């Protein structure tokens, strides 16, 4: 195995639970040393994929490789090289946090004692408290510390920050960056955009058990359009009809002209020239957030049940305006697996996001 061989590789992975198709031809590649964001709404198959990768479940068909080997047959040996944090952390209620840390540590390949002590301090965990008396966030911290303190080559994190407060979320992000600097590979499953955006080198977005799109953030953004918000002294000439501009809105405010629009990256320079001529007061150019990428990939009414609901509630977070504005004026060659249903879905999403 060379250094560039993927740490995790799945090809056409399917998993049936009775008649329910949890995974439907899922492809995923995680390369050494990267933080890989694994995005999808609830029920998309993230946890099932991870369980197959850990050898806890057997795939119905398709291939799953972990460190180049079959996780179903080699689970314990492969597990000495990874550490895992489950989405719903469960510990032994009668034991203390410190005892749980050691028990979890004992089944990992090895624990760095110095890092363990340091992490307990960074996450402000009281290891002498019984698990029964811990809050959900504290139980999550125990699992995170156990995983981060392990001498692992791969961290598999399934929605690891649910229940953490923003301060601890920051601490978590710092720790993940530290681990990546040590050369550790991270598979980070999440539906928190900000977290993935802050940490991930590459992203795979899945829906209904299938990979919808995959690539670096820059690659994913190539197909989307930045949002421009400009306040100018005069009305910028011919902006509304200019090539590459869409969703133009403008209004007069306190003697200034307030314009908002999205622009094709190729035409950004020309448009900025027009704004300059009008006398720029303030100018913001926002790259499309992951929210938009996410919404874009879930904009399918066929995914009615969970997908739009989950996406719209996330969108309310920080970039809802952008998401709503961007939804209809986008390049049609989107990476969605089902282009025919793309547009109407976006409209419903745009509505939901408002």
């Amino acid at each position, binding site marked *: 195995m060379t250094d560039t061989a993927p740490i995790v590789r799945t090809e056409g992975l399917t998993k049936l639970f009775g008649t329910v198709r949890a995974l439907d031809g899922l492809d995923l590649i995680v390369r050494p040393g990267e933080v890989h964001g694994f995005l999808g709404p609830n029920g998309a198959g993230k946890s099932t994929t991870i*369980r197959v990768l850990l050898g*806890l479940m057997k795939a119905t068909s398709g291939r799953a490789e972990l460190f180049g080997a079959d996780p179903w047959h080699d689970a314990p040996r492969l597990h000495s090289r990874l550490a895992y944090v489950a989405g719903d952390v469960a510990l032994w209620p009668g034991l203390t946090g410190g005892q*749980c840390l050691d028990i979890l540590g004992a089944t990992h390949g090895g624990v760095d004692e110095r890092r363990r002590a340091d992490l307990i301090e960074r996450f402000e965990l009281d290891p002498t408290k019984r698990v029964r008396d811990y809050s959900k966030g504290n139980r999550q911290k125990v*699992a995170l510390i156990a995983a981060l303190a392990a001498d692992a080559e791969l961290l598999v994190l399934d929605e690891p920050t649910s229940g953490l407060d923003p301060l601890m979320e920051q601490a978590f992000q710092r720790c993940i960056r530290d681990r990546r600097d040590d050369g550790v590979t991270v598979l980070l499953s999440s539906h928190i955009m900000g977290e993935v955006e802050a940490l991930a080198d590459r992203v795979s977005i899945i829906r209904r058990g299938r990979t919808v799109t995959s690539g670096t953030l820059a690659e994913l953004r190539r197909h989307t359009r930045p949002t421009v918000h400009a306040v100018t002294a005069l009305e910028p000439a011919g902006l509304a009809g200019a090539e590459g501009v869409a969703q133009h809105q403008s209004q007069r405010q306190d003697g200034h002209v307030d314009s908002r629009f999205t622009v094709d990256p190729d035409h950004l320079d020309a448009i900025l020239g027009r704004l300059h001529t009008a006398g720029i007061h303030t100018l913001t150019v926002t790259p499309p957030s992951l929210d938009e990428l996410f919404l874009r990939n879930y904009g399918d009414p066929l995914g009615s049940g969970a997908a739009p609901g989950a996406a719209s509630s996330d969108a309310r977070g920080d970039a809802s305006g952008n998401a709503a504005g961007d939804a209809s004026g986008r390049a049609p060659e989107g990476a969605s697996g089902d282009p025919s249903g793309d547009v109407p879905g976006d409209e419903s999403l745009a509505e939901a996001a408002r």
Partner: protein
Amino acid sequence: MLRIVARIQRRSALVWVAVLGASLIGTAASIAALYDTPAKIQTYATAVTTGNALVAINGKVEGIDSLGGVIQDEFGFLAAFLLPLLGISLGARATRREEESGRLELLLAGRIARHEPTLAALLVATATICATAAVFAVGLAVTGVPVVGSVLYALSLGALAFTFAGLAALLAQLTLHARSVYTWSLIVLAASYVVRGVGDVTQTWVTWLSPLGWAEKAAPFGDQRWWALAIPVAIGLGLGGAALRLASRRDVGSALLRGGAGPARASARLRSPIGLAVSIHRPATLGWLAGGILLTGMMGALTQQLLDAVAGNPALSEAVGIVAGRPMDGFVAATQLYLAIIAAGYVVQAIGTLRAEEAEGRLEMRLSGTLSRSRWLAAHALVVLGGLVTIVVCSSLVLGLATALSVGDTAELGPIVSSGLAYLPAELVLAGLALAIYGLRPRLFGLAWAGYAVMTFIAFLGPSLKLHQWVLNLSPTTHVGNPPVGAIETGALIVTAAIAVILVAVGFAAFQRRGVPQG
């Protein structure tokens, strides 16, 4: 608020009233049938008042030479636990359990004062207790016990339950978890039981220190001290009042007695798969062991008295399930069968714990490390096996020693222990069944309990109901040979053990192949 608590408690309250009512009336009816002449009652009274063992266990009943007295004596042991438990569960369920789960917070955000949930819990408990007492009184009167005595007896038991309801309500204010409420209430109950036993045996005022003593001293079939009811009622009201006062003053979610800090590191033993399995199974194992020892110790201590009683009243030997042979052997065999049922219950419950480990996500966490499935399951299977052997050997030893003390002869010790061990293969069949179901379809684990219920039914009632031999053969206990009355059937035991081994192997193989987790 009252309506909410009543709604939460309705089902469990009904079950309590029904179970308690049925067990008292059942006891009363069977006693009325068994002791249908004054002469028989007299024989019983003489039998139970000679020696101290029965007095310590059932209490010292005043007016034992009447039908009511006999019922009070026979029901004494059960009542000493069931009625306080009724009070404890009613007191704890609607208070700390609700607070622990966060549901109470939701209610208190509405137009409900902080003390109201506790008050409502106490009122519902009181109503349930009154209903139970009414069922008792009517049931006894119908059986033919004098009405006044029946009413006083029912009230004394109700007052006992009320004291413990108050205690549980107060403890719910002091501790952080519903679990601790139960633990501390049960400790108080055990202490009360011991104090009452000591007082009754020594015939001193010590009995008056125990809530169980107050119920006994009301003497419903003797001097009928109505004023003795005032003590438990007053103390129950005092405890309940203190609980209300605390509830209205303290912060929601707080507790005076918090669990202390524990160790910050796990010992090397705890880090090993077996060590962790031991710590997971320890509480249940100790519980079942206590049950086994309580049963065998009690039966053993009673041997001599029972032998005397049987000599005087042959009907009695049938009532406790002894059919033929030397009464002493029959007595030991019956006890060993009870013990086998306890031990089999332990293995089914212990293997059911594995399902909880899986359903709550801890198994997934364990298996994400270097621990393989087979090692994890083997560690647990070994620990459960160790627990089973401990329960059987310790309880059998206690039975042997207690019997030896009672009859003053140690000759029975060896046969008693070996008949206990003879049941191991039968118990292991249940373990194998549970493990196979866990490996194949953990969702269907209820089948293991169904198997246990079938075995218990056949073992206890099969012979007396004269069921067909093939039905009796379904239960692994049938093939043991009913030692020491019959000889241990070695050949059958080997076959039974082989079946157990096959079932265990099926469980392991299936677990190796299935997905984790499966609820």
